[in-house]
């Protein structure tokens, strides 16, 4: 079929027609020497986006057997999709179509009609040049596996598994420890706004065990994962000796590996490890759960306790969000234990971001607790020297000190990030794809993050994130439905590739692999999103971005800026 380009110029009522001489545009383009060997059909229309306009365009494409289409009209933001849909309806490959904005960028911008007309002509010619060099691209459809791998068997991982498992979707839950439950099983009580859920962890474990669509691997870790959204081949291996590896295919991977407290050697300046009666808040929770009360090393109940907030906040470079709240919870444990206990609570800022947090603080503040705002604090055994915010220096001797250390990503987070090629945030938690528009996705499609490995947060937030992951997966990975990967992807021309692997370093999606046999890099088209990073980085010009090839851009630019 010979090339036949249809160029349709929308008058947009008077919006374009008033300030662009459309007759001149048509005359100049049809008489241009540049296209003397080409078949051009160039016509104006009063309003192409109207229903009549769309029908007209459909008929034109069919009647004239057009092979390429250029629409000169408004902003692609307004009607790119309108015309793509017409292409699809008339079986004209949408990648052989180009929209030119002669309204916002010409008619509305340039008061001088002559100049506006000139600019419109050059833009339309640029589009014709480009469209002639565009190639047919065809969407692929890939089968997808609906099953999900969840890494981490804490509250978040269990919630994710329970919310996703169904007859159509199997969930594999991998936990590095020998039991499920994660950090939350240490807590005696939850925060008051989380109400009576002391058996939360136990209930979830039972529900997991009873769910035949969930397969649990304890004492296990992810050994390997290759593939892409809809088709990840994963290997899960037991950390115990002589166990065989389990290999299976999943469509999505959820990282729910949780948090740890900052390493204890960093707590030394607060006398942790130097005095037996200096504890972390988590140890107090564990003590409460085991013994039902808070006692000194000697077994006696403390008469005075100092609580120190924000330990490690400056070092780590972030606030852990929940420490102020759980310190209040510890105060309530202590006050329940002894009404007369002396409590000094040393804080720099109160972080009470939930709608009920302030009330909780106000309740505790009424219980004869010294809340002391400090600018500095040092601890020598259980002797505390501190500077109040007004500058006065003071000291205190206390029986027990409880620290609120910063929450950090659980051990193994970095290795997992490296294994899966998931980027880390500067704080070393996993990095989300976009903090506002895609807060639980990662830059790798089909890999999600939730709970303590996403950033410091409490149980409520973690469960919400688990359900958000559910929302993402049930709407993106639908059992029985095919996945349509990006079409405008990169391709590496084998003859030009030197195998330097620069492209692998700049690829944010892990779409490029090195083929050692051929000594060249290869793009996995199912993973590539067409960002073009690799194209720019390739020193030998071996990489081409489909639909944004050098020749397409060159042809377009040379006309647009001539």
């Amino acid at each position, binding site marked *: 079929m010979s090339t036949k380009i249809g160029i349709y110029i929308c008058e947009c009522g008077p919006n374009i027609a008033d300030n662009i001489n459309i007759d001149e545009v048509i005359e100049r383009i049809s008489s241009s020497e540049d296209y003397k060997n080409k078949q051009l059909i160039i016509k104006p229309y009063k309003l192409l986006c109207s229903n009549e306009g769309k029908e007209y365009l459909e008929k034109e494409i069919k009647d004239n057997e057009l092979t390429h289409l250029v629409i000169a009209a408004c902003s692609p*933001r307004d009607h790119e999709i309108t015309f793509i849909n017409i292409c699809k309806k008339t079986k004209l490959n949408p990648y052989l179509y180009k929209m030119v904005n002669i309204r916002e960028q010409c008619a509305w911008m340039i008061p001088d009609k002559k100049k506006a007309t000139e600019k419109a002509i050059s833009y339309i010619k640029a589009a014709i040049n480009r469209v002639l060099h565009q190639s047919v691209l065809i969407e692929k459809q890939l089968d997808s596996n609906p099953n999900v791998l969840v890494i981490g068997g804490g509250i978040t991982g269990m919630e994710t598994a329970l919310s996703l498992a169904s007859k159509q979707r199997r969930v594999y839950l991998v936990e590095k420890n020998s039991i499920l439950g994660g950090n939350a099983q240490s807590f005696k009580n939850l925060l008051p706004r989380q109400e009576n859920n002391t058996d939360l962890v136990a209930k979830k474990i039972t529900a997991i065990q009873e769910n035949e669509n969930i397969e649990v691997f304890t004492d296990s870790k992810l050994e390997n994962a290759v593939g892409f959204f809809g088709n990840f081949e994963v290997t899960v291996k037991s950390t115990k000796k002589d166990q065989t590896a389990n290999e299976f295919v999943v469509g999505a991977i959820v990282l729910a590996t949780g948090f740890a407290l900052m390493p204890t050697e960093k707590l030394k300046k607060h006398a942790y490890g130097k005095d037996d009666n200096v504890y972390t808040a988590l140890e107090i929770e564990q003590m409460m759960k085991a013994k039902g009360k808070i006692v000194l090393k000697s077994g006696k109940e403390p008469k005075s306790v100092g609580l120190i907030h924000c330990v490690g906040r400056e070092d780590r470079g972030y606030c852990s969000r929940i420490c102020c709240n759980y310190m209040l919870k510890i105060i309530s444990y202590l006050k329940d234990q002894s009404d007369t206990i002396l409590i000094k609570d040393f804080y720099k800022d109160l972080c009470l971001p939930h709608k009920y947090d302030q009330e909780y603080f106000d309740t505790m503040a009424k219980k004869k607790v010294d809340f002391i705002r400090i600018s500095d604090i040092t601890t020598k055994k259980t002797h505390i020297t501190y500077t109040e915010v007004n500058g006065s220096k003071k000291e205190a001797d206390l029986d027990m000190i409880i620290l609120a250390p910063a929450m950090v990503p659980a051990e193994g987070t970095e290795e997992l990030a490296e294994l899966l090629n998931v980027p880390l945030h500067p704080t070393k938690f996993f990095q989300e794809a976009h903090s506002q528009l895609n807060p639980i996705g990662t830059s790798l499609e089909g890999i999600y993050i939730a709970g303590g490995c996403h950033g410091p947060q409490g149980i409520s937030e973690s469960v*919400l994130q688990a*359900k958000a992951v559910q929302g993402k997966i049930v709407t993106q990975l639908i059992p029985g439905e095919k996945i349509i990967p990006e079409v405008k992807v990169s391709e590496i021309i084998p003859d030009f590739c030197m195998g330097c692997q620069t492209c692998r370093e700049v690829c944010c999606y892990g779409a490029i692999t090195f083929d050692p046999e051929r000594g060249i890099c290869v793009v996995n088209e199912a993973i590539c999103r067409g960002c073009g990073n690799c194209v720019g980085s390739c020193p030998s010009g071996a990489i081409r971005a489909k639909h944004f090839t050098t020749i397409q851009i060159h042809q377009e630019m040379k006309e647009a800026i001539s």
Partner: protein
Amino acid sequence: MSNSNNVLIIGAGIAGMQASLMLAKAGKKVVLVEKLPIIGGNTIKNEESFPNLECSTCMVAPVQQDVLQNDNIEVMTLSEVKAVNGQVGNFTVTINKKARYVSLTECIGCGACYEPCPVSLQNEWEENLGKKKAIYVPCDGSLPNVPAINSGHCLRLSGKKSCNACAEACMFGAINFSDKDEQVKIEVGAIIIATGFDLYGGKLLSAFGYGTLPNVYTSMEFERLYASNGPTSGELLLRKGKKLPDSVAIVHCIGRKELGYCSGVCCMYSFKYAHFIKDKLPEATVYNIYSDICVPNKSYQSFYNKIKDSNSTFIFQSAPDIVQIAGNNGKLQVKLTAGKGSKNSLNVDMVILSCALVPAKTSKELADILGIERDRKGFFQTRKGYIGTVQTSVDGIFTVGCAEGPKDIEDSVIQAESAVGEVFSLLG
């Protein structure tokens, strides 16, 4: 459940839009009801959003376009839910759809109708910092880019005069003076409430001179003052004096004590303002007057550190409401309670009150219509005894974003996504 494929979402802010798109992608039919003539919510009022200072319009406009162009989403602007009957799986919802008087299909958004309209009104969407006509879009870049006519003020529709100016200017016959309010009934399986927040504007604001001292601004006013599509095209021109400020005091925590909660976002947006001011006016002095720094996200402390270290003086006050503001020879005097290292008073050109987020005005009425509980602060209450849920006291009705409590965009979107998860758990 016969209507399990249909979902109603109330409020077309970032949370409502994201939930709509996800549900639509999975084949659900979504009705998205918005009381304003445009979609986008509060997020589009920001020039840039924290912590990455990303252009809000650039971030949200593609989302708005996706919503408007999605075949599975029916957007009803100028609409409010008036009645809900039935139960999970089978709700019958009555929606009042106000007349727009401009056809959404015929209008192409050229804007030719604004100029000839003889009526000038305060633009409340612009926090009354700018004007609009009786036929208007709230700001440049509004989506849908189709104006609405304010029938109470339009000379013709209010019966004052037989004006035809906009209709004459319209080249597409898009103006329809005989448009009528309608009542629409729809059937849905589940409902998501995403009605967002209002800014605190209680009596406390007048105690800070707001309303009497013109150069005292609320945070949302400042947001619009800085916006490039706002009433001053982004120039920080003071209300009084029409000049640029040399010094600005940002007072945090306005309303916290009275309301009994911290909104969790004001510190961050205050830091953003400090950055905005220094960016446009590098010589200006900026004071952040705070009582607690609340930066509850892994990315927030580093933003705070940057502001603290580079461009702003931080002054601690044990409670923000002890700050007093008075006029002083054309300046604003900010009286502080002295502690070591802080001055007794500051003379500044401009004061920004970093106000708390409060429940949207419509919350009470909507709670009554839906038969759901609100919490003691007036936000919608999630189900008691459940952790991390967005389910309300009624099965099949969910609440997300700031409708549930003050929060940032990230947490609002996470709730929206989790509501989608819960809708699927419930309806399949």
